[in-house]
């Protein structure tokens, strides 16, 4: 029953919040509207969503999100520093990372995270979704990098999505 | 509350919309019925408006109940009614023809057809220059779409030229609107007329540029030399009912010149009075010459008719250039005649082409037409009207134009051009006609008689020609009234700006 009203509970929540954010108001009228849209839009677009694994551990997800946030700041500062140095000190590289994650959505999240964080950029996913190809702006050591990514990002995601 | 003025725009629009929606959308039969009902309604409403206008009153319909210079108004004077009525009749003819099978050439024929009618009616009724632009675009876009109806290389190519030239024309229109708004600060045509008179000297030249740019824009629509090149190809490649409906398109341009350049930049515009006349004179004469040249060079009936259209445009433009009530009377009469006859001739050309097999409507020896008698009579009526020979309507229009140019400085030019064009058209038409009907190959003809609705449509439109002569007195009376009213508006534009909203004030 609840599933039918909220085909996408996460989405509904996000939509509810976003509506309030957009209008910058928590007036009763807007709360009502937010609710309406939070209900209505998922029903409207419900058909246009591929089935994705659900977030099993919401709290972990929040922690993960915050960690990524911090990493972004660090990443940017790092890149900025690298930028200011002459190019010859950089050691760019391509790296292939084996994936344990399954499912399109988790992989996408991982790829996005990698792109946002220090000196790495996801470039491609192999056709069988087993490998993630990453370009690093400055790679000191390949194995460290791979291990770091797997530990820091993939492991929590595995937990969050429970796969 | 009298909502008649909006109906000629609304009826075709709603009809078109209905045709996009089920249940009408699914069946061509239903679309035909809806289209017929809508057009009959349109004609009915317009006749009603015409009867009202006989009293001499101008109806002003303030859309959204906003006062005249601020909101958009529809100005329903005799001229506008005449034009819309003409559109309605022409469209009926074209529609009738298309029901015989031409509507199957592609999707959305009727919706586009009705939308084009809507655009044309809107352009005639509106009293707001930006709204005029909007309706221009409505009718143009619909015409682009209709042009490619039934497909084929020729159509694609013609519409490419037509489209691109008109897109540039639309850009120029907007430039002109920018200039006019930027100097006059208003969009209502009557209000513009008032503002033009008080324009400070510093801005007169700018407004002049605006006015002249509009001439280019309208000239392009009306196929004025040297902006007429799109016409032949476009008209001769369009499918018959579309080409017939297009007969009114050039008139939209001419109408707009009358509407804008008589009311806003007419005799009373102070320094800017009659600013287009020096340009219009040579353009009109050259248009006639170009059309004549083209008529002689034509190798098919459609080309011939297209070029005769150019000649008629030139004739009307010279009436515009003369710029008197008498000339406008003449021009309007000519306009009615040429619109309906051109429409009929395009239909006829198609019917002839259909009967001549591979030769189509080209002037070459071909098999005998099965229905050569009715088509031949129709051809004779149409071509005589078009070339301006008695006993059909063309000569009345021609003579009226000639008479009205007496005393004008360029009289000799106009007379020379019109008369020589007439002669050359006769030569071209007699050559073409005798080839089409009389140069017959031994090839046996298919026993395919022309479809009844087609024939009926052709004669329906053609009947206008003798009727215009028989009731020439009444028609020319009306056109002269319309012309008088138009010039009256040029004198007193404030007639169109009622001080209080006609229908109660907004809250």
């Amino acid at each position, binding site marked *: 029953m609840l599933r039918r009203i909220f085909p996408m509970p996460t989405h509904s929540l996000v939509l509810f919040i976003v509506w309030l954010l957009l209008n910058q108001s928590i007036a009763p009228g807007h709360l009502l509207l937010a609710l309406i849209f939070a209900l209505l839009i998922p029903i409207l677009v419900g058909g246009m969503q*591929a089935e994705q694994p659900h977030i099993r551990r919401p709290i972990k997800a929040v922690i993960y999100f915050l960690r990524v946030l911090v990493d972004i700041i660090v990443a940017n500062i790092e890149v900025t520093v690298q930028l200011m140095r002459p190019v010859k000190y950089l050691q760019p590289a391509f790296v292939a990372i084996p994936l344990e994650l399954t499912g399109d959505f988790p992989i996408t999240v991982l790829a996005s995270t990698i792109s946002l964080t220090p000196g790495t950029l996801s470039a491609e996913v192999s056709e069988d979704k087993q490998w993630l190809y990453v370009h690093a702006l400055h790679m000191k050591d390949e194995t460290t990098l791979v291990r770091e990514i797997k530990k820091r990002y993939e492991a929590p995601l595995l937990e969050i999505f429970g796969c | 509350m009298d909502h008649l003025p909006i109906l000629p725009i609304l009826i075709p629009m709603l009809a078109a919309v209905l045709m996009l929606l089920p249940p009408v959308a699914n069946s061509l039969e239903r679309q035909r019925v809806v289209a017929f009902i809508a057009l009959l309604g349109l004609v009915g409403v317009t006749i009603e408006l015409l009867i009202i206008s006989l009293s001499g009153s101008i109806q002003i319909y303030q859309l959204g109940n906003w006062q005249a210079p601020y909101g958009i108004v529809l100005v329903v004077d005799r001229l506008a009614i005449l034009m819309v009525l003409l559109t309605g009749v022409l469209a009926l003819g074209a529609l009738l023809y298309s029901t015989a099978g031409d509507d199957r050439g592609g999707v959305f024929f009727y919706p586009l057809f009705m939308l084009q009618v809507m655009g044309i009616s809107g352009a005639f009724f509106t009293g707001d220059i930006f709204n005029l632009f909007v309706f221009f675009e409505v009718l143009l876009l619909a015409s682009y779409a209709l042009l490619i109806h039934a497909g084929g290389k020729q159509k694609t190519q013609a519409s490419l030229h037509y489209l691109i030239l008109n897109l540039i024309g639309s850009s120029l229109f907007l430039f002109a609107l920018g200039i006019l708004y930027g100097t006059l600060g208003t969009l209502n045509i009557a209000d513009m007329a008032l503002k033009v008179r008080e324009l400070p000297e510093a801005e007169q030249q700018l407004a002049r540029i605006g006015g002249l740019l509009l001439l280019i824009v309208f000239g392009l629509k009306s196929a004025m030399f040297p902006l007429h090149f799109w016409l032949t190809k476009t008209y001769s490649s369009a499918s018959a009912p579309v080409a017939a409906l297009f007969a009114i398109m050039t008139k939209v341009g001419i109408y707009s010149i009358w509407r804008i350049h008589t009311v806003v930049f007419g005799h009373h515009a102070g320094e800017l009075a009659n600013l287009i006349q020096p340009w219009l004179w040579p353009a009109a004469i050259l248009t006639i010459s170009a059309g004549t040249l083209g008529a002689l060079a034509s190798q098919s009936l459609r080309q011939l008719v297209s070029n005769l259209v150019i000649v008629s445009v030139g004739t009307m433009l010279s009436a515009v250039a003369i710029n008197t009530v008498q000339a406008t009377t003449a021009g309007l009469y000519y306009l009615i005649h040429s619109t309906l006859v051109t429409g009929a001739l395009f239909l006829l050309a198609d019917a002839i082409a259909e009967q001549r097999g591979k030769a189509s409507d080209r002037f070459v020896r071909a098999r005998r037409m099965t229905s050569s008698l009715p088509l031949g009579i129709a051809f004779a009526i149409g071509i005589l009207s078009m070339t301006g020979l008695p006993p059909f309507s063309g000569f009345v229009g021609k003579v009226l134009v000639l008479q009205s140019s007496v005393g004008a400085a360029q009289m000799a030019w106009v007379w020379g051009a019109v008369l020589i064009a007439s002669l050359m058209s*006769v030569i071209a038409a007699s050559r073409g006609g005798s080839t089409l009907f009389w140069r017959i190959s031994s090839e046996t003809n298919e026993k395919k008689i022309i479809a009844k609705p087609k024939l009926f449509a052709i004669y329906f439109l053609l009947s206008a020609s003798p009727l215009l002569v028989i009731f020439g007195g009444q028609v020319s009376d009306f056109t002269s009234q319309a012309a008088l009213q138009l010039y009256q508006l040029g004198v007193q534009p404030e007639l169109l700006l009622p001080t209080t909203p006609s229908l109660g004030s907004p809250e």
Partner: protein
Amino acid sequence: MDLFLLLVLPLVGIVVPLLAKSCSRTLCAFLTAIAPVTALILLLTMSQDLLDGVVLSSSLSWIPAMGMDLSVRLDGLVFLFLILIFGIGALVILYARYYLSPDDSMGRFYCYFMMFMSAMVGVVASGNIIQMWFFWELTSISSFLLISFWSSRTDARKGARMALTVTGAGGLALLAGLLLVGQVVGSFDLETVLNSGDALRESGEYPFILVLVLLGAFTKSAQFPFHFWLPQAMAAPTPVSAYLHSATMVKAGIFLMARFYPVLSGTEMWFLIVSLTGLCTFLFGAYMALFKHDLKGLLAYSTISHLGLITLLFGLDTRLATVAAIFHVINHATFKASLFMAAGIIDHESGSRDMRQLNGLWKYMPYTATLAIIAAASMAGVPLLNGFLSKEMFFNETLDQGSLGSLSWVIPVLATLGGVFSVAYSTRFIHDVFFNGEPVNLPKTPHEPPRYMKLPVEILVGCCLLVGIVPGLVVAQLLNAASSASLLGPVPYYSLAIWHGFNLPLMMSFVAMAGGFFVYYNRRTLFHFQMQFPEPDSKVVFERWVQRAIKACRFGHAYIENGSLQRYIFLLLLATLAVTVTPLTALQQTSGLKPQLPMDAASVTAAILLVLSAVATVIWNRKRLVALLMLSVVGLIVSIAFARYSAPDLALTQLAVEVVTVILLMLALFFLPQQTPKESSPRRLVRDIGISALVGGVIGTVNYAMMTRPLETISDFFVANSKTGGGGTNVVNVILVDFRGFDTLGEITVLGIAAIAIYKLIVGMRLYMPSGDEYGRHWSTDTYPMVLAVISQILLPLALLVSVYIFLRGHNEPGGGFIAGLITGVALIQQYIANGVGWMKARVHINYQWMIGSGLLIAAFTGVGSWFFDKPFLTSWFDYFKWPWVGKFELASAMLFDLGVYLTVVGATMLILANLGTLTTSERPDERVLEDQ
């Protein structure tokens, strides 16, 4: 009313044969003849008045704006012509019954014939000169139809066209002349015009009028040098020739001269032009007639000659000459019509018209021969026949004039010479055809024609005899009435006696007679002499000239209208420049008085970037994708500029539109070549740069001049009424949905049309599907990149929410249905891009066409809704409501209208893009297969 009946009867007669054509041929002819005979009887009932010089007239108002009334005016001259028209007309109808073969469509012939008769009646009986011209042109047209009656014959078609061209040209000249007459006189009423002779002769337009009117008359009457169409018109069936080319149509020109004689004659100019033309024609026609081997050709040239004679008489410009002219009109009509009919009989019964074949027919058809010989004798001017009388008068008049001073003797001498040839060709007609040995190779054995075929000839020949023998009894009164009507005054004394004693004219007749026989006797020498001058076939010459003219036109036309869009655009721009440059040069001060905004570095930088990207677009226009990228930058900067100059709505719209446009252009680019070939010559480039820079310069200058001038606009009203009257604080949006909602209605209609038009274009389109990019690389095999697909799906609800937000706030803050619609559209397109058409198709079941329709319907019905409140279309309504807990909120009809806009926009965008996608996918070859190869 009786008078109108004269006009109406033949008109009714047009219909009769069409209705009667299924009856027997005789009945058909009989029924057709009813109209002219009735009219003739009707006319004769009025004869007493008309012969007494009374003018009968009647008129109805018709088209006052052009001075054309429906008016009939009868006087003696008209009476004469009407008798000819109806009388000979009726005879020809009878004759044609036997002449036409059963294969010919009798109904069609009689229909054309009556058409011509009506026109002819109209010409002579008109009381209004415009109306006269109206019928004048009708004669040309109906004669065209009659000449080309045997339309499958090339010579008939060509002859008809030639006749139409020449007489049509004359008709147009006549029109100009008549209009000028009306201008000078101030009326087109014939009576008034006839009474304004002095005014006309004194006006400055007189020379033009004279020349133009005479051009009309001369072309119609086949005067030299416009005579050439008449011999070619002999391709017509002989009844037509008998009627048109002897009695009526060619006489229309003569009628015109007779009619306008009182107003146009009496000047040196008239005399010179008319008499010299007449003289030339007279001599030329007579001379040429002799050499024609074709019977009808001979008659045609003799007709030309006689018409010249009559013209010459008018040109002599004495009152008596006019009488003579009119008399000869009667005589010529009778003998020439009978001659044509006789020729027709001969042709009909023997199968040939060639005088080299036709010999000695006397033996086979003595009765017909007798008739023909009498008529021919009359033509030659043999005494006791009518031709003699008028020829005598003619000779007399040539002697009586003195306008050429001491050279005046030339005219009678030349007239006699003409007479010599007349006699010669008449003799030839008689001798060659009926005597002169035996027929040569005739297709048929000749014999007498059916009884009633001869009847018309008998009647006409009888007339010849009667007039010739007892002129005083038969024609005196008629001639008198006609002459006085033409002269508009008393007729001078003349005598119609056969015998005037031995005088100079009689001597001239004798000389002519003797000379004629002499010439005929020595004809072989003369034929031999004439052979040196091969006579050009006027048909061929004319046709060649027309062909040449048409070829020249085609060439010229193709040269100007060469099918190159670039040229057309160039001309359009040139015209634009032409009209704008003049006022610009008159603009004294470019910059106006309005204080200008200060420059700031950021804006200047943005402007520089804009300029650079625009120029880069041009420079790299041949690398299409790059140009597209540059264009995007331009669009981006333009929208930032809108934001900068206080137009957030515009910025939003511009952005959204630009993205959709770029997507569209990319879609198109896939199917178009990736690069533009280099095909503009440097000269062309310079030209293009030049003209576009000029136009750009003009626009820029105007823009600067405009922006720097102060302006007072109507906008204050909008600001003042936006909240109170429109219920919204975003004035731009209120203008869009309320103040100028009608524009918006039009605008979404345009969008709707565009969508269905594009759909129409797409249906049935066959595309080129490149299998690799411009460098020949194969496309990537990853059709729908996974990451993109996932993210797009996540973003969709968000985007929809944003569009709802933009939609709802539009009335009060930047936003509105249009932008919201585009956002929704783009969000959906994004799904198509990321997930593919098939994926979407399986999940979305919206009919976009219906969506457009309902959008437009909603918008329109919002407008119609105001009718129920007795307000005009699109009058808006809004109110504030207060609900417990929820609070105060506004509802407005404008929102409904905006919803219509929204739906239309979404529907239109999707209809275009989604369908385009659908179309392409189904035809796309599989790259994997390609790559393997």
